[in-house]
C-alpha cells in the first residue's frame, strides 16, 4: 500500500541534543528537498544520489540559510517506510527544528500523525507481525495524549482564535448552503462580494496567526520559572541542580539582588529563566519583609511556579497559605527531601491544589528529570508560554493553518474567475475540515445544526 501523501516529523527525541533528524517520507520527498537544500556554495544540486550524505544549508523562502545540515536521500523501497525518504540532520534545539519542519510543510508535506512512520512501515510490509500490536497501542496512546492536549488548548489563545475563525467560516458556509437547500425561502442571498470580504478576512487572520508563530517568540524570550518556598527547603540546591545538568546561558545577570537570583538555562531546547526567591514567611522584620514582598512580586510575573515543600515535615500554616495564594497560578509542587522519612500530608495538598506533585530529592537527584520533562511538556503542548507573546503554536497547528490559508487562497481566486458560490463551498469545506482537526468537529454535522438553528426554513 503506497500512500500518496508525503509526511514529515522530527525523528529524534525533542531536545537540545547536538543533532536532530527530520524525516520526510512519501512520493514528494525528493521534490521537497530539492526546493529547500543548497550546497555549501549556495547552489542547488543537479542530481541527488541515493544513500549519499550531502553537506549544505536548508534555505527559507527568501533563499536565506536557516541551518547548516547534512542531508541524505533514500530511495524506495529500501527504506524504513518503503517509500522515498529524505533525512535532514540539523542542529538540535527547537529553533532550527521548527523552522525546517515549517519549510518542509510549506513545500507540500503534511505533518505525520503519531506513529505514522511506523504505521506506513508496517502497512508497506517493512516490520513484522510481532511488532504490529505494539504499534497499535502506541498509536492509540499517543493520539489520546494528543487529543487531551488539544482539548486543554481549547482554552488557550490560539485555540480560541481558531475556534472563532472556524465559526465565522461556518456562518458563511451555512448562509450559502441554506439558500441552496431552501431556494424558495425568503432568505437574503449572500453576495459574492460579501463572501470575498469574509474569506479575505479569514485569510488575513490565518496569516497573522502564522506570522506570530514564525517569530518564535517563545523560543526567543523563554519562559519565567520562579522557585519559591520557605527557607531551607532546598531552593538553591534545586537551582544548582538544574543549572548543573543543563547548559547555563548567563550566570551573572546584572540587577539581581541577593534575595533573588536569576539563571538562564536551556532545558531540551526550551529557554528557561529561573528565579530563586527568598523564602515566603509572614514576618514583622522589616528587612526580611522586603525579601518576602520581592518574592511575591517575582512569583506574580512568572509563567510557572515551582513550589518547594519539605516532605519530611508536617504542613504548617504558612504552607497552606502559600498553596491558597497560588491557587489560580500554574504551579508544580515539589515535595523535596523525599529521601528522608515522609511526614507531609499529600492528601491535604491535593484538596487545596490541583497542581501536579513530584517527589524530589536534591541529595540523590530523585524527580529532577521528571521535573524537567514536565516543564518542557507544558511548553511544547502550548499550555505554558511567555505572558506577552501572542500565540504559541506547535507544528501540527502550523501545518493546519498553512493548509487553511492555501484553501482560502483557492476560494478567493475561484471567486475572481466567477465560479459560483456553491462550488467555492468545496474550498470552504476544506478549510473547515482542516480547522476541525484542531477543534475536533465534523463539518457536515456542525453545518446542518447551524442551518436549522439560525434560519427559519422548512414548510
Amino acid at each position, binding site marked *: 500500500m503506497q500512500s500518496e501523501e508525503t509526511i514529515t516529523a522530527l525523528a529524534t527525541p525533542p531536545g537540545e541534543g547536538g543533532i536532530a533528524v527530520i524525516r520526510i517520507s512519501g512520493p514528494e520527498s525528493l521534490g521537497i528537498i530539492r526546493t529547500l537544500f543548497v550546497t555549501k556554495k549556495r547552489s542547488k544540486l543537479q542530481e541527488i544520489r541515493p544513500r549519499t550524505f550531502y553537506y549544505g544549508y536548508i534555505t527559507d523562502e527568501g533563499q536565506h540559510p536557516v541551518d547548516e545540515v547534512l542531508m541524505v536521500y533514500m530511495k524506495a523501497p529500501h527504506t524504513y517506510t518503503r517509500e522515498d525518504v529524505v533525512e535532514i540532520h540539523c542542529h538540535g534545539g527547537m529553533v532550527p527544528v521548527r523552522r525546517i519542519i515549517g519549510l518542509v510543510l510549506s513545500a507540500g508535506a503534511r505533518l505525520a500523525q503519531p506513529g505514522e512512520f511506523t504505521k506506513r512501515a508496517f502497512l508497506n510490509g517493512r516490520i513484522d507481525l510481532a511488532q504490529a500490536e505494539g504499534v497499535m497501542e502506541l498509536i492509540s496512546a499517543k493520539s489520546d495524549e494528543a487529543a487531551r492536549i488539544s482539548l486543554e488548548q481549547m482554552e488557550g489563545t490560539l485555540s480560541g482564535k481558531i475556534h472563532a475563525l472556524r465559526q465565522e467560516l461556518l456562518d458563511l458556509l451555512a448562509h450559502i448552503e441554506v439558500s441552496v437547500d431552501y431556494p424558495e425561502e425568503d432568505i437574503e442571498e449572500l453576495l459574492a462580494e460579501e463572501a470575498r470580504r469574509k474569506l479575505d478576512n479569514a485569510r488575513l487572520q490565518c496569516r497573522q496567526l502564522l506570522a506570530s508563530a514564525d517569530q518564535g517568540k517563545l523560543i526567543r524570550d523563554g519562559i519565567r520559572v520562579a522557585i519559591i518556598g520557605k527557607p531551607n527547603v532546598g531552593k538553591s540546591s534545586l537551582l544548582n541542580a538544574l543549572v548543573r545538568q543543563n547548559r547555563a546561558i548567563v550566570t551573572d545577570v546584572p540587577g539581581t539582588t541577593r534575595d533573588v537570583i536569576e539563571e538562564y538555562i536551556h532545558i531540551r531546547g526550551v529557554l528557561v529563566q529561573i528565579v530563586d526567591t527568598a523564602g515566603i514567611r509572614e514576618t514583622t522584620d522589616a528587612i526580611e519583609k522586603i525579601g518576602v514582598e520581592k518574592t511575591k512580586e517575582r512569583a506574580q510575573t512568572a509563567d510557572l511556579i515551582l513550589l518547594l515543600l519539605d516532605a519530611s515535615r508536617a504542613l504548617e500554616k504558612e504552607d497552606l497559605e502559600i498553596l491558597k495564594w497560588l491557587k489560580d497560578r500554574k504551579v508544580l509542587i515539589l515535595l523535596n527531601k523525599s529521601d528522608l522519612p515522609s511526614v507531609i500530608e499529600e492528601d491535604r495538598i491535593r484538596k487545596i491544589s490541583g497542581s501536579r506533585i513530584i517527589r524530589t530529592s536534591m541529595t540523590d537527584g530523585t524527580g529532577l528529570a521528571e521535573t524537567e520533562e514536565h516543564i518542557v511538556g507544558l511548553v511544547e503542548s502550548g499550555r505554558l508560554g511567555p505572558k506577552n507573546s501572542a500565540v504559541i503554536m506547535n507544528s501540527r497547528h502550523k501545518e493546519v493553518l498553512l493548509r487553511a490559508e492555501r484553501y482560502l487562497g483557492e476560494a478567493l481566486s475561484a471567486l475572481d474567475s466567477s465560479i459560483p458560490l456553491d462550488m467555492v463551498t*468545496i474550498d470552504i469545506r476544506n478549510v473547515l475540515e482542516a480547522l476541525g482537526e484542531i477543534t475536533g468537529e465534523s463539518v457536515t454535522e456542525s453545518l446542518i445544526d447551524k442551518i436549522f438553528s439560525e434560519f*427559519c426554513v422548512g414548510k
Partner: protein
Amino acid sequence: MDFIAGKYEIIVIGAGHAGCEAALASARMGRKTLVLALNLDAVALMACNPSIGGSSKGHLVREVDALGGEMGRNIDKTAIQVRMLNTGKGPAVHSLRAQADKKRYQEEMKLTLERQENLTIHQGEVESIRTENGKISGIRLVTGEVYLCRAVVLASGVYLKSRVIIGEFSAKSGPNGLFPANQLSECLKDLGFTLQRFKTGTPARVNRRSLDFSRMKIQPGDSTAEPFSFLDDCRIRDQTPCWLTYTNEHTHEIIRENLYRSPLYSGDIKGIGPRYCPSIEDKVVRFKDKKSHQIFIEPEGLHTNEMYIQGMSSSLPVDVQTAVYHTVPGMEHAEIMRPAYAIEYDCIDPTQLNLTLESREIGGMFFAGQINGSSGYEEAAAQGILAGINAVLYIRGDEPLILDRSDAYIGVLVDDLVTKGTKEPYRMMTSRAEYRLLLRQDNADMRLTEKGYRIGLAGEQRYQRTMKKEESILREMERLQHTVLPPSDKNESWLKEKGSSPIQSGLSLYNLLKRPELHYSDIAGLEDQETGKVSAEVGKQVEIQVKYQGYIQKQKRQVEQFQKMERNGIPDPMDYRLIPGLRLEARQKLQAQQPVNIGQASRISGVSPADVSVLMIYLEKMRRERKSSER
C-alpha cells in the same frame, strides 16, 4: 392449518412511494412479486404537499429514473407546474420541482402497477412476517391468509401504530383517515428490531373558492418545462400558478396565546419531529424576531378546489387553526376542508441495516422509506428502488448493488441512515453530499443508467440513449479543442459585443468557453457548419465540463481519496473485542454496526481517526497471517 393464499418470490409491504418503486423494480427484473397496500385507494398517496422534487430531492428523482424507476415518468405525466430552482447558482445545485395533480399521480402509478407483468397488487394488512432459519419464509395477513415468499421489502411508511393529533384530540389513525397498521410493530420487536418514535405533520387544505388571490403574489411555472425523466423530452405545458402570501404579527400573537393548547408544548406528543419541517407554532417560538413567515398556496390538482397551505403545518386545535389562518392576507375567509394535523409513528433504527437496506440479522428482509426514519416521497422512492433491486439480487444470489457517497445522492442517503442513524425524520439536502459537483441532476443518467442496465432494470432504449449522449459529449469536447478561432476583425467585434477581451493569436473554442462571460450557445454559433448538431442536453454537459473543469478535477481527487478507504474491506463478521488498542466506545459501536469497509467505519460516530488507524493495522495483520498460513 394456514390458508396458503399464494406463493411469490418477493413481497412488498406498502404501496407508497417506496413500495411502488420496490415492487416495480422487482417485477421488471423478472421476479414474481406481490405488493400489498392497506388501502388500494391510497397507492402512491401524497399525504403531505402535492409536489415532487426541489433542492436535492429533484436529484433523487433523476437518479431513481436513471436506474429505471418510475417516479420521474409518473410526475412528468401528471405535473401541473414545473420549475427549475437555483438557476442563479452553479449547475450542481439546479433542482427540478413540480406541482402534481395529486389524484392523477396516484391513478397513473396504480395503473402502472396494475399493468406490470409479474406483479400482483392486493389490499390487506400484514399481521406478521415469518422466518425460517433466520431467513424470510412468508407473511400472514390479519385476515388469515398466508403468502409464502423468499424476500420481503417492508415499506410501511408512517402507518405503524400511527396516531393523529389535532389539538386536544387524538386518534389511532394513519394519514388522511386511513387505517393504521397496529400489528407489525410487535412483530418487528419480536424479530429483534429496535424501534423509535417519530413525528411529522401537515397543514390544512382549504377551498380555493374562499381565497382572495388579489391579496397574494402569483408564482408561475417556467416557460419551458424540463422533464424529470431522461426518457421524456422537453415540452411546453399549461402551467398552473401557485400563490405567495405572508403571516403577520397578528398571526403570531394568536399562536403565542394558544401555545398551551398545542400537544407539542403540553407534552402530549412524544415523537421526535424534524427540524427542517417545523410547524408554524415552532417557527413562531423558535424565531421570535421574525415578523412574518411566507406561505405558499399550492393547488392539489386540476379537478379539485382543494389548496395546500405550505408553511402552516400545525397541531393546534381546529378553532385556533381557523383563527390563525384567517389572519393571513387573502385567507380572511378561508374555508378549511381538512384541518392540519400532527402524526406520530413507529420506525426502526436504520443502523440495523446493511448498505443494501437488508437487515443484518434476517436474510431477505429489506426496509425502505419512512420505516427507516427518513421523510419525503423522493427519499422513499430512492430507498424503494434500491431495496427492490437488492431483494432481487439476493434471490438471484448475485452481488448486491451498493451506491456509495460518490456515486449518487441515493448513496449519501443510505449511507447516512445506515452508518450514522438518525434522531429525527431524515431529509435529503445538497449540503449532505460532499461530492455534489459530480452528483448533478443533469448527469444522473451518465452516473447510474449503466448500473441499472447491467442488473436488468434499465431498459435497452434508456441505455442506448445514455451511451449516445456520452459519445456526443466526447466528440463535441474534442471538436472544441481542435477548432481554433483566429484573430480577425469579425471575431474581434464579436468578442467585444459579448463583453469579452480580444484574442492575440488563435484560441481554441475550448479555451474560449472557459471565459465566464461566454456560453456554449455563443460558441456553437461561431462555426456555421457545425451549428445545431448537438442537442441542448449535450451542449449543457459540454459547457459544465469545460467551465468548471478545475473544480470537477478537485472533486474527483477527493473522490479518489474517499474511494481508497471504501475499497479497504472489512470481513463480516468481525470480532472487534479482539482488537487491542481500540477505545471502548469505538469497539462497541463497531461491534454493533459491523461496517463493510474502513471508510464506513470512519463515519460511525464515536470512531476516531486513531481507532481507524488501529483497525487498519489489525486488518493488515490478519491478511498477512492468513497469507502465511496458506503457504
